């Protein structure tokens, strides 16, 4: 167990933006919520799974809805607590702690708020090791952990409880209900025992986000190359350095989809990169050949500051570095891979782990 203070939260937020691979929402609001809660209620205890009892019940907390809404209708705070407690009541068991459903973006930090207010442990693990747009896209789904019972609350005090036949049904119902809540709902889902999580969760991802954030901060302070620092911190590969030459966006089925083209510079002069995104970065092709795809992580970084660039912020003329790094190994098991396979996102291509593509080079 170790304590998370304000400084840790800054680093986690920056690292979470890298792990957000272009999506997952701006962690700014989550960072402020966590910081204020820690100022008011004291530091949060971060536990690894090994430090908890196998029977302990852990209930992840998160927010869902439109990222643009959360910056305007700031959360009440009570809504998160209410959803969390409702789930505990429905389960008939007192949750021991909370955790992040996704290590990338806004939802990586939101549970720190719950942990601080309820003075319960935050567990150092998550269900994705990255960010994905839909509720069922977790390692948990592949391991048979159900998103149900599912609780969603708004600032008014409404609580919806759902018990569904599959995790995909939670996504379907919750996505339409959240609109009635003003496109913002606080949720609790995927409750699981520590024993289940030891098998199914991705361990140590809050610490990983924090390490990435600290690395970037230190590299900036030392005026070292932050891109290289990020690449080393995540054990990744530099796919490309280039300049964005074109960005095309469209709305398909309620998602932000699109692609960006880049022309290589320095060592990559003469090469062309095509980046596809749907809320998150999905696939990279260099000179027509796939270089990395989901579920591996693709991060686009400002070539000077190492700051991760979201899909909304991609713009002609930006000079960027594209790095890719291996997803959590759990994603590569057949049942999990099916949920986040390149084919699920419409690419007729086999999944090849990024380190196999880049082995030795």
């Amino acid at each position, binding site marked *: 167990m170790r304590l998370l203070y304000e400084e840790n939260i800054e680093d986690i937020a920056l690292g979470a933006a890298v792990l957000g691979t272009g999506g997952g929402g701006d962690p700014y609001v989550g960072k*402020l919520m966590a910081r204020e809660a820690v100022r008011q209620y004291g530091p949060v205890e971060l536990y690894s799974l090994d430090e908890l009892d196998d029977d302990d019940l852990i209930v992840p907390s998160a927010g869902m*809805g439109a990222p643009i809404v959360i910056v305007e209708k*700031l959360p009440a705070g*009570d809504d998160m607590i209410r959803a969390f407690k409702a789930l505990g009541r429905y389960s008939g068991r007192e949750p021991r702690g909370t955790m992040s459903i996704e290590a990338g973006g806004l939802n990586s930090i939101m549970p720190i708020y719950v942990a601080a207010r309820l003075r319960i442990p935050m567990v150092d693990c998550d269900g994705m090791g990255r960010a994905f*747009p839909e509720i069922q896209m977790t390692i948990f789904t592949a391991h048979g952990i159900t998103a149900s019972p599912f609780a969603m609350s708004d600032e008014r005090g409404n609580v919806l409880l759902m018990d569904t036949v599959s995790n995909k049904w939670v996504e379907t119902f919750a996505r339409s209900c959240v609109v009635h809540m*003003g496109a913002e709902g606080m949720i609790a889902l995927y409750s699981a025992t520590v024993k289940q999580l030891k098998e199914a969760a991705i361990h140590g991802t809050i610490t990983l986000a924090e390490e990435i954030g600290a690395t970037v901060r230190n590299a900036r302070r030392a005026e070292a190359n932050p891109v290289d620092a990020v690449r080393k911190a995540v054990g990744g590969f530099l796919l490309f350095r280039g300049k964005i030459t074109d960005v095309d966006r469209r709305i398909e089925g309620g*998602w932000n989809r699109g692609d960006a083209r880049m022309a290589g510079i320095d060592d990559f002069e003469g090469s062309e990169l095509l980046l596809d995104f749907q809320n998150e970065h999905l696939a990279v092709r260099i000179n027509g050949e796939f270089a990395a795809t989901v579920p591996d992580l693709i991060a686009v970084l400002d070539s000077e500051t190492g700051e991760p660039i979201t899909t909304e912020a991609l713009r*002609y003329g930006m000079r960027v570095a594209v790095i890719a790094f291996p997803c959590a190994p759990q994603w590569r098991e057949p049942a999990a891979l099916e949920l986040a396979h390149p084919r699920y996102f419409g690419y007729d291509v086999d999944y090849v782990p990024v380190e196999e593509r880049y082995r030795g080079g």
Partner: protein
Amino acid sequence: MRIGVDVGGTNTDAVLMDGANVISSTKTPTTANVSEGIAKALSTVIADSGIEAAAIDGVMIGTTHFTNAVVERKHLTPTACIRLGLPATVCLPPMVDWPDDLRDMVGGNSHLAHGGHEFDGREISAYQPDEVREIARKIRDAGLSAIAISSVFSPVNSTFEEQSAEIVRELIPDANITLSSEIGRIGLLERENAAIMNSCLRQLAARTVDGFKAALDELQITAPFYISQNDGTLMNADFAKEYPVLTFASGPTNSMRGAAFLSGLRDAIVVDVGGTTTDIGVLQHGFPRVAALAVDIGGVRTNFRMPDTYSIGLGGGSLIESDPLKVGPRSVGYELTEKALVFGGDILTATDVIVAGGSEDIGDAGAVSHLDASLVAAVQARIMEMITIAVDRMKTSATPVPVIVVGGGSILVTGAIEGASEIIKPDHFPVANAIGAAIAQVGGECDRIFSLAELSRDEALDQAKSEASNRAVNAGANADSIEIVDVEEVPLAYLPGNATRIMVKAIGDLVEA
């Protein structure tokens, strides 16, 4: 005839224009009491032109004074904030993301009340006038009269903010109230921050604007005067007293607008070369392209539409190192005329290299005749490479575009810029910023989320355009001259029902006095 004035951190520039012609111009040092520097600059341009003060139709002033007050934590009035949105937003109260010293200075007196709207216009909770009345009493009893009022999604519906202002005025008749919906866009904390800063600055604004007026009176200039806003449009003196935050970042905007005017181009890249830095911006339809990201003012996050500029450490005073070759970012800055070789100093600067290259005749060319020709060529090539990369970064497509070079350091541009269809160095380039102030128009904006389930896209666009136009007219534009200069539509992700954010900007010519 119009006079444009730009009050920068170092220099106060002024220019007197007759229609499109520059009659006279001047640069004088900025003074601690801003009005003194302005008075000096004004009297110089008038004397140089030989015209009567009575012939002047308007004076347009661009100033960084209010930005500096926030940055330097000076002259700020303690301000209370009322936010309508309960039960939402509780965990992040007003001023939550301010630096502690600034929050302490402003008072941190904030209150939450019921009200607010959803993105689609529904109410979050019923508005409760008695609750607001009770808060207003507390604010009055705390001795405060500067107040900011925000409400969730007030850019969609501002009625709760307006109703609350009425109640506050009943209890505090002389209240200085800023509504967040009057000055900001979607993004509650950022918009509210701007509203609070605005109320903080109003006393200073009243004093400063009255000081400008006194300086004009002394010179017997009876023409109306205006202050530049960050979007390149003007506000009249009374409006400036009400909305001082809208002057933030007007400097780069004026410089780019001046470049557009001097070159006659509406779509181009502007390269403004100063003594220490070069700022590159993009003109779209004659106005600066605005930044998409949040902008920090004195450590406070705001969402003003600031010009999207990219700065590099290159200017007339940039230090040159030969081995390895390095140009900037260190600079002798305002000491150029003492420290550069051509001015009898002992530091090799970018200006010295340009003089040695023979394209300019400044100071004592003999002092740089010893410079190695290959070094001169290498430095010139490096400067052009730095500018080329920065220009390329700001372009929106690969198509070549014209590049306008302005600012005192423009002599540094000696070669071609890859990706530029032409390079234009207009006359009067050193005072482009004052010219930008002189020629400014007035504008209005609309930024709202529309549900296209209820309205057709065309109806929503028309509604947004007419809102923006009405605001421009209210700000002093001639209704017949209104032009829509910017339309942006952003469909909202993760939401069915075709919610779309529409941003429209309208501008028009000032109604002549």
